[in-house]
C-alpha cells in the first residue's frame, strides 16, 4: 500500500481486510471528508466504502430496526418508519440542503463525531447501539460509549461502523421529536438541538423518557435526572413544565462564534420543554 492508495471495495470483507493491513482514511458520503480537505494537502491513503451496497438500507428485525452505516439522510426521510423514528426523520430533513441529505450517511455522521452532529442526539434518544466490524470480528456498543469525547470515537483504526441498531419500545408505543436551533434556516449548524423520546404506557403515562442534547457539551448527551423525573408522569399538556435548570447541570456548553455558553444552556432547556410539550399535545412529533 502506498500513501496514495485509493481502494474501492465492493464487499465488506475486502474492506475490512484492507483496513487490517494499514490504517486508511475511510470515505463514505464524503460530506465531512471533503470539507476538511480544502486547500493544499499531502496525498493520503483512502478506503472508499461508497461501493459497499450491503452497508446501505434499513431493515426491520425481531429486536427493532437495523440501519446500515451507509444509509443516507434521504433514505431515512423516504423510509416508512414507526413514530419513534420521527426525531431522526426531522433531523434528516434539516441536515444541510438536499444535496447533503442525498449523500451524507448516518455512519459518517456518528464517526465524524462533531458535537453538532444532528444524528447523535436522535439516536441517543432512540437508545441505539452501534455495530463495529473488523477482520477480527464484530462488536456492539451503546452509542453513548462509542462517543469517546470531543470529535473522538471508540472506533479502532481497523474497524468500520457497519450498522446502527434501534430497539423496539419496551412497552406500549414510543413517540419522538427533534428540535434544532440555529442562526439561519437552511444549511445551519446547530447552536443547540434536542431529541426526546417518550415510551408511553397504554394508560398514557411516561414509561420511559430519553432526552438527549447536542452542541452543549463535547459530545451529545442524555439527561438521566430529567428522564427519571419524567417517568410515571401523565403524557399531557404541561409536561414541559418538568424541565427546570437543575436538570441541565450535566451540560457543559462553550462560548463560540455561534452563541454564548449561558445562552446554549438556556436554549437547551427551552427546546426540551417545547419538545416535551409537543409530544404531550400532538401525540406524536410535530
Amino acid at each position, binding site marked *: 500500500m502506498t500513501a496514495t492508495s485509493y481502494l474501492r471495495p*465492493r464487499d465488506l470483507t475486502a474492506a475490512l481486510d484492507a483496513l487490517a*493491513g494499514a490504517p486508511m482514511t475511510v470515505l463514505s458520503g464524503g460530506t465531512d471528508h471533503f470539507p476538511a480537505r480544502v486547500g*493544499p494537502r499531502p496525498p493520503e491513503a483512502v478506503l472508499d466504502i461508497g461501493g459497499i451496497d450491503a452497508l446501505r438500507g434499513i431493515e426491520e428485525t425481531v429486536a427493532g430496526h437495523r440501519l446500515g452505516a451507509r444509509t443516507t439522510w434521504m433514505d431515512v426521510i423516504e423510509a416508512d418508519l414507526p413514530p419513534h423514528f420521527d426525531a431522526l426523520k426531522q433531523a434528516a430533513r434539516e441536515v444541510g440542503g438536499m*444535496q447533503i441529505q442525498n449523500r451524507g450517511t448516518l455512519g459518517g455522521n456518528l464517526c465524524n463525531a462533531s458535537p453538532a452532529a444532528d444524528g447523535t442526539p436522535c439516536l441517543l434518544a432512540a437508545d441505539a447501539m452501534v455495530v463495529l466490524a473488523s*477482520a477480527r470480528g464484530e462488536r456492539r456498543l451503546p452509542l453513548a460509549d462509542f462517543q469517546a469525547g470531543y470529535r473522538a470515537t471508540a472506533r479502532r483504526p481497523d474497524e468500520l461502523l457497519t450498522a446502527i441498531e434501534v430497539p423496539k419500545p419496551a412497552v406500549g408505543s414510543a413517540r419522538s421529536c427533534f428540535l434544532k436551533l440555529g442562526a*439561519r434556516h437552511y444549511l445551519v449548524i446547530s447552536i443547540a438541538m434536542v431529541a426526546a423520546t417518550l415510551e408511553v404506557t397504554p394508560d398514557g403515562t411516561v414509561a420511559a423518557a430519553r432526552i438527549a442534547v447536542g452542541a452543549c457539551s463535547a459530545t451529545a448527551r442524555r439527561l438521566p435526572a430529567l428522564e427519571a423525573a419524567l417517568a410515571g408522569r401523565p403524557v399531557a399538556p404541561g409536561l414541559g413544565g418538568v424541565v427546570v435548570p437543575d436538570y441541565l447541570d450535566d451540560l457543559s456548553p462553550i462560548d463560540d462564534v455561534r452563541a454564548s455558553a449561558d445562552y446554549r444552556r438556556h436554549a437547551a432547556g427551552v427546546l426540551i420543554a417545547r419538545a416535551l410539550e409537543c409530544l404531550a399535545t400532538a401525540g406524536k412529533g410535530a
Partner: protein
Amino acid sequence: MAETLNGSPKDRRAEMETNGFLGLIVNGVAHRLDVPPGKRLTRVLREDLGLTGTKVGCDAGDCGACTVLLDDRQVCACLVPVGQAEGRSVRTVEGLADGARLNRLQEAFWKHGAAQCGICTPGMLMAGMELLERTARPTRDQAMDALGGVLCRCTGYQKIVEAMLDAAGNGPAPPVDTLPDGGMGARVARLDGRAKLDGTERYGADHWPADCLHLRVVRSPYAHATFEIGDLAPVHARFPGLHRILTAKDIPGVNGFGIYPDIKDQPVLAPGRVLYRGDAVLALLGDRETIDGLTDEDLPITWTEKPAVLDIDTALDPASPPLHDRLTEHNVLIRGRVRAGEAEEALGICAAAADTRFDTPFVEHGYIEPEAGYAVRVGDRVHVYACTQAPYMDLDEVANVLGFDKGRVRIVPTACGGGFGGKLDVSLQPILAVAAWLTDRPVRYVYDRPESMRASTKRHPARIDARLGADADGRLKALRLHADFDTGAYASWGPTVAGRVPVHATGPYRVENVLATSAAIHTNQCPSGAFRGFGVPQSALATEGLMDDLAARLGIDPLEFRLRNALRPGDRTATGQVLERSVGMAACLEAVAPRWKDWRADAQAANAAARVAGSPMRRGVGVGCMWYGCGNTSMSNPSHMRVTVDAAGRVTLYNGAVDIGQGTYTIMPQVCAETLGVPVSTLAQVTGDTDATLDAGKTSASRQTFVSGRAVKEASLALLAEIRRRANAGPAAVIRFEEGAILAVEDGVEKRIDLSGLPVGADGAVLEGIASFDPPTTPLDADGQGTPYATYGFAAQIAEVVVDIDLGTVKPLRILAAHDVGRAVNPTMVEGQIHGGVAQGLGLALMEEYLPGRTENLHDYLIPTFGDMPEIECLLIEDEEPEGPYGAKGIGEPALVPTAPAILGAIRHATGAVVRRVPALPHRVLTAIREADAEAASR
C-alpha cells in the same frame, strides 16, 4: 477472515485499486476517463471534460454552486469522489438546453431576472430540475426546500423562487414588458443572460491556457510577524514539479498596491514583515498536483511573532506597535469631519436627546465566485484575465507593480461572479502578471474559499458614538457623531469610508447643527475595504436607532417623526449643499405609510393574542431610511463611452462599465437604444477589455447607471450629432439606421449617408460618438463644506419580524422597500438590486460576523439562505435627477442601507429590546430582551 475471500488478498487489493479507466455517463454521453477515483467530480467535469458550467464556490458543500444530478438526485459535485459516480448518470447545466433552445426553467430564470451575476445559476437550475422532475406542482415551500442548499448572494432569492414556481406551472409569469424596443423603463431580460443560463459564461476560473503554470500564494499564519525565508533548493529537490518560488525580491516594479495613488502600502509579496493573517509571503509556481500537495509546512520560513494590534483601542494606545511609518498620527490612517452650526451648544438646549454606542463587526462580501484568473506574456506586454470590478484601476496597479508603462498591460475582465466592493481592489492580478512576465508562461491562480475570505477586504467594523437632539415639536436640531473604523492592515478604501460617513451622518434628515467625525484606524486585522455602502450602513444603524429613541421619547410615531424631518427640495445638507431636485425622501416615506399603519396595528393585535395564549412569538414593525450619494465623494470620477456605426449600419456600444451581475451590460444598451431611437436588440456590444473599451471607471459607489449611463447618452448624442453634421441636417432631423446607410429626415426631406463610402477605422467603425461624463462636485473644506455628490438616492424600508422571546430568534416576515431611483432604467433589474440589497442588509442585521481565523468558510460564516428571506415588495419612486440619463440615479448601495435599521426597529417594536450591536444573534437579542424587561419592571 482473509482466507474466506475468493482469491488472495493481494489480488483483491489490485482489483479495488483499479485506478485506470473509469466510465461515466455525463449528460447522456458515455465517457471513459483516466482519472484518480478520489478526484472531486467537480474537477473531473471542469478540467477533464471541459464542462465548466458546474461552478466551484467553496469545495465544501456550503454554497451548492456545484450542484449536479447524480442518478437524477441533486448532489454537490465537490463532495463526490469521481469513483463513486462510476457507471452512473451525471447531469450538468450543459445538458439542459436543447441546442439553442433553453428549457422552461432556464427560460423562466431569464425572464424573471433570477440570474444576476449568474455564478449560482447552474447549481440553482440543477437543484430546481430535480424538483421539477419529481414533483408535479411543487408548492413554494417545496421549491424552497429543493433549492435551499444553494446560496445566492445577488438576488435575495425572490426572483429565483418566482421563476421556479412559474416554470413548475404554479406561479405567475413575470410582468409583461409594454416597451418592445427596450429603451428607458423596459423590463429587458439581461442581454448577457443566455450564457449565464446554459453554462457557457466564462468566469475567472473557467478558462485557462492548456500549458499554464499554477500559482499559489503562501500567506501569513500570524497577524503580525517578521519572517525569514531559508534555502529553497531542498524544496525544489523534493518537489520536482515546482517550477519557481517568487519572493518580494522578484517584484520588478513597485512592491505595493492600494486604491489611493499616494498609498501603495500593501505588498504583492511581503518583504519580511507581515501585518495580517493572510498577508502574501511567497508564491509557488508549478504543476497543479505539486502545488496542491505542497503545504506551508514544507517551506523553510522562520517566523518571529510580534505583538498584534487586534482592536482599535489597542491601536490608538501610544504603547502599541506603529504599523506604518508614514502615518503622522499613531496608527491613524485618516480622519474625516463635517461641521455645520454649533452641535454641542444646540444639543444642550434640545427638548429631547438620545445617545448611542453602536458596534458592528467585519462583514465578508461572500460573493460566490472566489477570485480567479490567469495572465499571459505577449511580447513585451502582459495580459491579465480575471474577475474584477475595476479593470482600469487594475491596469494602473499591474503596470506599477511590473514597472511598465500602462500601454504594456491589458486587463480583460472575465464574467464576475459577484463583487459587492470586494473585487474593487486587486487581488491576484499583480502576482499573476509578475509570474507570467518572469516565467514567460501562462500562469493561473484560483483562490480557494478560505483564502478568499482570509486575504480579501471586508466591511469596516465600526464603533459609533452619537448623540441626536430634537425640539419639543419633534424637529431635529443637532447631531454629534464619531465613528471609529477598524481599517485593518492596509489602507485600501479606508479613506473613502472615513470621508463618506461624516457626510452621510445625519441620514436623510434636516439637521442644522452637526459635528460628525470619523477615523480609520490601522490594526493587524484583514484590510477593510469597500463593501456596498462604504461605511454608511454602519452609521445608519446608529442614527436610525437614535431616531427610534427620540421618537419614543417625544411620543411621536417613528415614521411620522422621520417624515417631519425628511430632507426636501431646497434643504441644505450638513455639507452646505442645497438639494434642488430629485429629493424623494418624503415620497418614499409617504409610499410606505399606509402599510406601516396596517402592519403596526396587525402586529399589536397579534401580540395581544399571543400574550393571552401564552405564546412566546411577538411581532413588530420597524422603519429604516437612508440617503446615499452616487459616485465618488468630491472627487472626479468620469466615465468615457464610445458608440460606433460600421459600414453595414450596425451600431456598437463599446461599454467598459463592468457588469458584476447588477446589469450594466443591459442598462447601458438600453440608454443607448433610447437615445438613438433604435430597438435594443439591434445593438452590438463590446465589453470589458482595456484594449477595446474606454475607461468607464469602477463598478462601485452606485455610479454606473448614473455616471456611465449619462456618458452613454452623451456618446449616443455625439454620434447623432456627427450623423447630422455629415448629412448636413439640423438638430431636429430624425435619424434612421438602415442596412448600409443612415437616413436623416427633416421636414419631410430625407438625407442619406451611404456608409460604404466612408473610411473604415481599425475596429470597423465608419462613424463614432465619444463622450464623457464626470458628475459635478466640489472639494470639501476642512469643515467638510462643499458639494460632495451630484445626486443622492433616497429610500425608506419597513420590515416586519417575529421574535421568539424565549429563544431570542428573529424571523423577518415581510419588507416593503420604497426607493427613489430617479428613473428606473429597467424595473426588473432595480427590483433585483433591492432584493439583493435587502438580503445583505438582513445578513448584516441578523447573522454575519467575520472573525479572522475562525469563520473563514461558508459554514461558520453565515449568509442568508432561501429560508431566511422575507417576502419583499418594491415601490419605485421616480423623482427624476436632471444630471442622470433620462433622470436615472443609482440603486446598488441604497438597497442595503435601510434594511438592518428597519429590522432592529422591528425587534424593538416587538419586544422593547434595543439591540446596539450587530449581528443580532439569538443570544444577544435574548440579553437585550431581558434588559428591556428589567428596565420596564423598574419603571
